[in-house]
C-alpha cells in the first residue's frame, strides 16, 4: 500500500478520525498495529524482519545499559550493530558481493562454484536498519533514558517514515509518542498541504519525467545521444529523483502531521545549493545528518587537522553512502564523486582562508553555484545508467565528445526547461503562496482558510493526482 494509492488515501480519513477519537494511551498501540499492517500490506512474510530487528536491538540496548561502561556493555553495543549490519548485508548486498567475488575468481581463470542467492529485498530495510543503529548509538551515549519496548518499536515502525524515511532520531520522535496533543485544525491544514503537494509532485512531476528519462537512458539509444542530450537527461533525472523522493518525504511528513507528529524535513530546495557541502545540507537532510553524526564525526575526531586522512575519510564515507543507496558500482561511483566534490571544496576553502574577500566575490559565488549544479547533475549519470559503459559514454559525450544535435523529441527539452524554471522559482512561489494565505486569513477571519480556499486548492491537487494516475510507477527510493 503506497502513499499515492487510492486505498491508502481513502483509508487515511477514518484512520485519522479514529486516532483522534481514542485516548492517548490507546493511540500508541493503535499506531503500532496500523504500522505493522501497513508494512505487511506489501508481503506478510517479510513483516517479521523489522520486528526481529526491533526485538534484537532493544534487547542489546537493554543489556548494554545494564552492563554500563564495561567491556560487556561495549560487546552488547557492537553485537547489536553487527546484527543489524549482517541482516542488512544479507538481504541487500549478498548477491553484489558474491557476484563481484565470482568475477574476481574468473579473472584468475577459475570458475566459482556458487550462483545467485534467491533473496527478495525487504522494503525499506536500509531506512529502518539505520534507525535501529541510531537507537543503539544514542542509548550508548546516554541520549536515550530507559527506553520502553513500545517506544522503540514505534520509533522504528511508525508507518509514515518506515519505508523511505525521513530517517529520524530517537530524541525528536519518541517524546512525541505520548500522543498527548489536542487536535487542532492547523494539524489538518499543514498535514494535507504536505500530503497533497506530495501527490502532485509524484504523479504530475516525477512520473512523466521518469518516462522520458527511461527512454533516454535506454542502452540502445546511448550511442546516438549528443552533448545536449546528455546534459538534458542528467538534469531530467536529477529533477525526477528530486520530485520523486521529495514527494515521498512530503507525504510522510503530511501523514504524520495529521496525527500531530512532526517529522524532520528532508529537502530544502537542493538545486539552490551554493556549494557541495550546502547541497548535502539540503538533499536527503536526515541521511546527511546521520552520516555526519554517526560516521563522519566519530571517524574524524581522531584526525583533527590532518587534511590527508580527512579527505580519505570523506571519500570513504561518501562511497559507503553510495553503497547504502544500492548494491551496484554506479551507486558507489555516485558516492565517490560526491565525496570528491566535498574534498575539492575543502581544499578550496583551505586555500582561500587567508583571503576571505575572495569567497564573497560575486563571480566566485556564482561560479560555485553553477559548478555545484553541474557536478551534482554529472554524478546522477552513474547513479542512473544501466552499466558502467553507458555512464562512461554519456559522461564522455557531456564533457569531451561534443555533438550538438537533438536526438529526443522537442517536447522532452521543453518539459525539462519548464521544470528547471519551476525549480528555480519554487522557493519564491512557496513564499508568495504562504503570504497570500496569511493575508487572506487575516482579511476574512477564516481559520487556516479551511472554508473554501484551502479545500479548493486541495481539490485541484487531487484532480491532478487522479488525472496523472500511474499505478505501476514506484517510488525510486523504495529500491534502496
Amino acid at each position, binding site marked *: 500500500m503506497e502513499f499515492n494509492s487510492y486505498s491508502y488515501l481513502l483509508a487515511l480519513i477514518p484512520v485519522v478520525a479514529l486516532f483522534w477519537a481514542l485516548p492517548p494511551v490507546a493511540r500508541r498501540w493503535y499506531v503500532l498495529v496500523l504500522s505493522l499492517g501497513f508494512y505487511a500490506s506489501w508481503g506478510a512474510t517479510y513483516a517479521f524482519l523489522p520486528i526481529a530487528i526491533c526485538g534484537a536491538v532493544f534487547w542489546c540496548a537493554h543489556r548494554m545499559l545494564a552492563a554500563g561502561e564495561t567491556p560487556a556493555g561495549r560487546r552488547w553495543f557492537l553485537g547489536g550493530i553487527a546484527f543489524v549490519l549482517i541482516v542488512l548485508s544479507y538481504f541487500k548486498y549478498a548477491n553484489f558481493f558474491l557476484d563481484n567475488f565470482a568475477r574476481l575468481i574468473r579473472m584468475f581463470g577459475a570458475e566459482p562454484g556458487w550462483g545467485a542467492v534467491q533473496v527478495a529485498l525487504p522494503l525499506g530495510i536500509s531506512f529502518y536498519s539505520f534507525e535501529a543503529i541510531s537507537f543503539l548509538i544514542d542509548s550508548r551515549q546516554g541520549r536515550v533514558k530507559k527506553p520502553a519496548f513500545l517506544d522503540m518499536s514505534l520509533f522504528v515502525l511508525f508507518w509514515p517514515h518506515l519505508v523511505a524515511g525521513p530517517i529520524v532520531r530517537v530524541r525528536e520522535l519518541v517524546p512525541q509518542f505520548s500522543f498527548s496533543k489536542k*487536535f487542532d485544525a492547523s494539524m489538518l491544514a499543514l498535514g494535507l498541504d504536505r500530503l497533497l503537494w506530495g501527490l502532485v509532485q509524484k504523479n504530475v512531476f516525477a512520473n512523466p519525467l521518469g518516462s522520458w528519462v527511461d527512454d533516454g537512458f535506454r542502452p*540502445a539509444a546511448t550511442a546516438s545521444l549528443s552533448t545536449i542530450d546528455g546534459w538534458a537527461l542528467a538534469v531530467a533525472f536529477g529533477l525526477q529523483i528530486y520530485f520523486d523522493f521529495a514527494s515521498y518525504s512530503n507525504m510522510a511528513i503530511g501523514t504524520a502531521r495529521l496525527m500531530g507528529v512532526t517529522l524532520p524535513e528532508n529537502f530544502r530546495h537542493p538545486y539552490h545549493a551554493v556549494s557541495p557541502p550546502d547541497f548535502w545540507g539540503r538533499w536527503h537532510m536526515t541521511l546527511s545528518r546521520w552520516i555526519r553524526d554517526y560516521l563522519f564525526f566519530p571517524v574524524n575526531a581522531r584526525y583533527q587537522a590532518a587534511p590527508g586522512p580527512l579527505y580519505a575519510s570523506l571519500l570513504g564515507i561518501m562511497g559507503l553512502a553510495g553503497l547504502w543507496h544500492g548494491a551496484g558500482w554506479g551507486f558507489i561511483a555516485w558516492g565517490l564523486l560526491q565525496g570528491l566534490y566535498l574534498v575539492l571544496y575543502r581544499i578550496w576553502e583551505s586555500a582561500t582562508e587567508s583571503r576571505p574577500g575572495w569567497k564573497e566575490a560575486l563571480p566566485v559565488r556564482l561560479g560555485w553555484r553553477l559548478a555545484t549544479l553541474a557536478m551534482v547533475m554529472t554524478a546522477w549519470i552513474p547513479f542512473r545508467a544501466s552499466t558502467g559503459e553507458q555512464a562512461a559514454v554519456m559522461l564522455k559525450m557531456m564533457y569531451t565528445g561534443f555533438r550538438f*544535435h537533438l536526438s529526443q523529441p522537442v517536447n522532452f527539452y*521543453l518539459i525539462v526547461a519548464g521544470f528547471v524554471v519551476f525549480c528555480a522559482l519554487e522557493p519564491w512561489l512557496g513564499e508568495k503562496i504562504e503570504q497570500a494565505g496569511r493575508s487572506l486569513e487575516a482579511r476574512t477571519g477564516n*481559520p487556516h482558510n479551511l472554508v473554501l480556499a484551502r479545500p479548493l486548492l486541495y*481539490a485541484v491537487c487531487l484532480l491532478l493526482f487522479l488525472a496523472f494516475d500511474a499505478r505501476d510507477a514506484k517510488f525510486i527510493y523504495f529500491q534502496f
Partner: protein
Amino acid sequence: MTGAARLAAFAVFQTLALLGVLLWLRPVGAVNRAIDWLAGLSPEAAMTIPVRRQPDLHETSLGDAPKASFERLAARWHDVAPRRRVLFTGNSQMQMAVLAPNERLRPEPERTYFDWVAEGLAGRGVSCYRLSAGALSYSEALWYLTYLTGRPETTPGLVILQTNYAGFANGGVREGIAALLDDEAFAARIEKLAADPAWALSEPAREALARHRRQREASGPATGASPAGETAAAGHRLETATRAWLDRAVPGLAIRDLHKVDVYSLLFRARVHVARIRSGGARSIAPARLAASRAALEAIAALCRERGIRLIIFRAPVNPSVTLFKTESDRTGYEEFLAGLCKRYGGTLLDFEASVPAAEWGNGVDGPDPLHLGRAGHKRLAELLIERIAPQLGL
C-alpha cells in the same frame, strides 16, 4: 465533537465535493476550447478524429497487444491463397485522419487510405490487413514480419511498407510488441538476430529480450531485488478492489485520463502559441538511429526475398507546405537508400511524396499537418495506390 474537529470534517467534505465538481466540469478542457476559439480554429482542428477499427482488417491494439489480433488474422487468412494476402505496414500516417480546413466532422468514423484500398481490392479477391502503430519503428516492423512469417497462415504474399523520413527517427521495440517473445519459436529467431554484435539492430533486440526476461521474472515468484511478493500482496489486491469500486461508484472518475489529455493539450497550445514551436519541423536524424532504421529495412527486404514475399516500398505523401528534411543531403540520402534497397533486394519503389495537394492535408492546432491526410487526401492516395498495386497482383 470539538469546533476544530467539526471544521476539519467540513474541510474534508468541501474538498471531496469540489473534486466532484472539477471532475464533472473538466476545467482545463474548457480553457483549451477558449484558446482555440480565440485563435480562430474550427473545433475539428483540435479533435482526435474517430477512424474505422475493424478487427478483420486492422491490428486494433495499435501495437499494445498484437498477439490476439494475429490469432484472428490467422483464422481469416487460413483460407486465402498466400499470393492474395496483402499486408500494409506503417506508422500513424496509415491509421489517422486529421480533417482539412474545408472538411467537417461526420457521424460515421473516417476511412484512411488503407480502408479505401482494402475495400477496392476486396472485390477482386484480395485480402488486405493493416499492421500499424503510432511512431512505429522499422525495427518493430521487422519484428512483426518475423513473427507473422513464422506461421504459414499469417505469411503474406505481398508486403506494402509505407515509409517517410520522419519514420527513420523512431527506434526500439515497444513493450506490447516485445510481448510476442512469449512465443518461444519467435523468441529463438529474435535471439538469433540479436546474437550478431556487428549488426546495428542487435542492440535494440538484445535490450528488448532482456526487458522481456526481467518482466517475466517479475511476474513469477519473488526473486531478486524487488519488494517481496508485491503483486500477490494484500495491499495490491486491496488497491485493485478499491479502484474498481471507485470507478463504479464515483461519476466521472473512470474517465480521469481525459483530464490528463486536457493538461497535455493545454501545454501543447502553450508550445504553439507562446513558444511558437510547431510540429513536424525539418530535422536531421542522428546517425546511430538512422543506421538502425536502415538496418531494419534491409532486414525486412532480406526476409521478404528469403520467403518469396513481394515487397513494395512506397514513399508516403508529405504535405507540400512543409519539409521533413533539414538539409539536401538528408533528402538525397533518404532517396538513394530506398532506391538502392529496392534494387538490391528486387522490391518495387513507388513514390507518392508529392501526390497530394496542400488543400487535402489535415489542419491541426499548430497549423498544416506534415504527415496526416484529410478525408479527400486519404481517398486520393488510395486511388493512386490501387492503380499501381493492381498490376503487381496480376489484376
